[in-house]
């Protein structure tokens, strides 16, 4: 049989039962719509979360004091870890491939300016903070490259802090007090918004050495390293470990690359997307049962016709193919309608609720359509096999 005749015969039997075909397609269409819509939302959330995490850049390595390991017995004097110091951070600046090193110490302190006072997050930071974390200074400048052990008492305000403390006035050159010590404001940061509920604008930056003093600590919270795009991550990591291990005598620190974090996060988010797709898959399964039901009914109705075309010279395989094609076409057309509906709804959602991240990856759209056709094929297998297996003599007698 020629392919176009095959298609014409299949089409004719689907058109002959328009309403029934339409309703069956609708079942698959709803399933595909659900899959497309849910994966679009899942993928949107995926991207949204990743964007939140990568807004500080992706070429970051964080070094924290202490090492998470379990030892047998007491470590005694060797168990105490050395503090992560500003000198450590300075040493890392000389490594090849390293673009920026920021010592970080963080805490909460009372900040006063004139008659206004506010508790805020205070960062003890280094001069390379803006380039390392991809942040901009709106006015003035960031903390200068002072003597790292004895920096001047200068401060930079987050944008929220600026409006809270100085309202309409120009804060540059003004005096503020942080945790009781006096600082001069030299810059205001561009607004960065909130990340996962943490307000990045409600902050004050002071030099790291003064931060250690303020919070009465001898170890930094963290050293953040920005490395060159062209540098090989493994080499940078190895160089950092070399320097720090030489300085500390052993590996008493933990090194985390942004890439590792993103990989873990990505795999978690992939599970999320897969899970919502599976929920959509359930409705697709219901659609498939609809196709199997309709095809079973169609075979029962057309027993005489099956006998006839067998008598006219159709092979078993041709009968099988005709019914399989009907099921597959039903599902494929239903799938296309579902795709249109799903993409349409996703776009509508994007326009109506801009805050909700929606993104339709075209690979999923292709996969969904392929899946629909496969489901049709599978749903058609049993009825089509029954049709092909009919004894022509008995089939002819049925009418």
């Amino acid at each position, binding site marked *: *049989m*020629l392919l176009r*005749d095959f298609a014409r*015969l299949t089409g*004719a*039997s689907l*058109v*002959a039962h328009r309403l029934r075909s339409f309703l069956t397609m609708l079942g698959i269409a709803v399933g595909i719509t659900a899959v497309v819509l849910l994966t679009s939302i899942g993928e949107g959330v995926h991207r949204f979360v990743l964007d939140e995490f990568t807004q500080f850049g992706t070429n970051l390595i964080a070094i924290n004091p202490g090492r998470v390991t379990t030892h047998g017995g007491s470590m005694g004097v060797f168990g105490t870890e050395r503090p992560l110091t500003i000198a450590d951070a300075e040493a890392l600046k000389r490594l090849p491939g390293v673009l920026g090193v920021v010592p970080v110490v963080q805490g909460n302190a009372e900040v006063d300016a004139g008659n206004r006072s506010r508790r805020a997050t205070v960062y003890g930071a280094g001069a390379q903070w803006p380039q390392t974390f991809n942040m901009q200074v709106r006015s003035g400048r960031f903390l200068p490259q002072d003597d790292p052990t004895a920096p001047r008492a200068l401060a930079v305000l987050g944008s929220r802090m600026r409006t809270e403390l100085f309202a309409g006035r120009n804060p540059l050159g003004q005096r503020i007090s942080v945790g009781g010590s006096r600082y001069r404001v030299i810059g205001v940061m561009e607004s960065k918004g909130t990340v996962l509920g943490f307000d990045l604008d409600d902050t004050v930056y002071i030099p790291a050495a003064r931060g250690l003093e303020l919070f009465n600590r001898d170890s930094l919270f963290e050293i953040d390293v920005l490395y060159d795009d062209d540098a090989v991550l493994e080499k940078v990591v190895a160089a950092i470990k070399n320097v720090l291990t030489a300085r500390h005598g052993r590996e008493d620190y933990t090194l985390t690359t942004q890439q590792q974090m993103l990989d873990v996060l990505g795999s978690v988010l992939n599970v999320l997307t897969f899970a919502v797709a599976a929920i959509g898959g359930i409705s697709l399964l219901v659609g498939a049962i609809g196709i199997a039901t309709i095809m079973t009914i169609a075979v029962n109705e057309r027993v*005489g*016709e099956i*006998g*006839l*075309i*067998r*008598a*006219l*010279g*159709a*092979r*078993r*395989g*041709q009968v099988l193919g005709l019914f399989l094609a009907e099921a597959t076409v039903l599902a494929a057309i239903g799938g296309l309608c579902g795709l249109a509906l799903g993409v349409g709804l996703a776009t509508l959602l994007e326009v109506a609720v801009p805050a909700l991240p929606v993104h339709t990856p075209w690979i999923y759209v292709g996969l969904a359509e392929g899946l629909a056709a496969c489901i049709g094929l599978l749903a058609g297998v049993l009825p089509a096999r029954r049709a092909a297996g009919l004894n*022509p*003599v008995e089939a*002819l007698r049925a*009418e």
Partner: protein
Amino acid sequence: MIDLQHIHRDFQVGDQIVHALDDVTLSVKAGDYVSTMGPSGSGKSTLLNLIGLLDRATRGRYRLNDEDVTTLSDAEQAETRNRRIGFVFQAFHLVPRLTARENVELPLILAGLPPEQRQGRVAASLEALQLSDRAHHKPDQLSGGQRQRVAIARATVTEPAVLLADEPTGNLDQKSGRDVIDVLESLNARGITLIVVTHDPELGERARRRVLMRDGRIESDMVR
């Protein structure tokens, strides 16, 4: 042409084995006109299905056009049916959603003939049965006699050597029945081998050769 030697066809019905055909030997020459009569369950339809390669003999040998067709595969049987055998059924068996022309076209479509080769043959077949003006009607817009003529057009469009008719007038009024018989006999007059299974003695009497069956055996075989 058709040569059946010691054909047996057994069916399993419950625990019992029914001998639908019991040692039937029958030879039909090309161009012959044979009627097969007999009471219900005498095996006449089974004989027709077997000749039409819709069924297989349990034992015995069947030669069609000097070719042993007893052991053809399913696909080979289908191809032989398509090329050499035409069927006319009591219930017409037209596909309701296809037009008269499309119904007649079906065997050629199944044979994989391209449309340009089909058109002429379908038109000629419809013309021969005076159905040209009914070509685009669906079966439910046709009378019984017209439906059976469409079925005959479909059976003959492949120019088969044998036409097998199972109670071709069973669902028709007398006049349409006579028309259909006239059509079948004129086809026979032009050389097609015609085998008719019928209950109707009047129709059976018309055939040149009359085979009477009872209990799966040929009881009498008369040539006029």
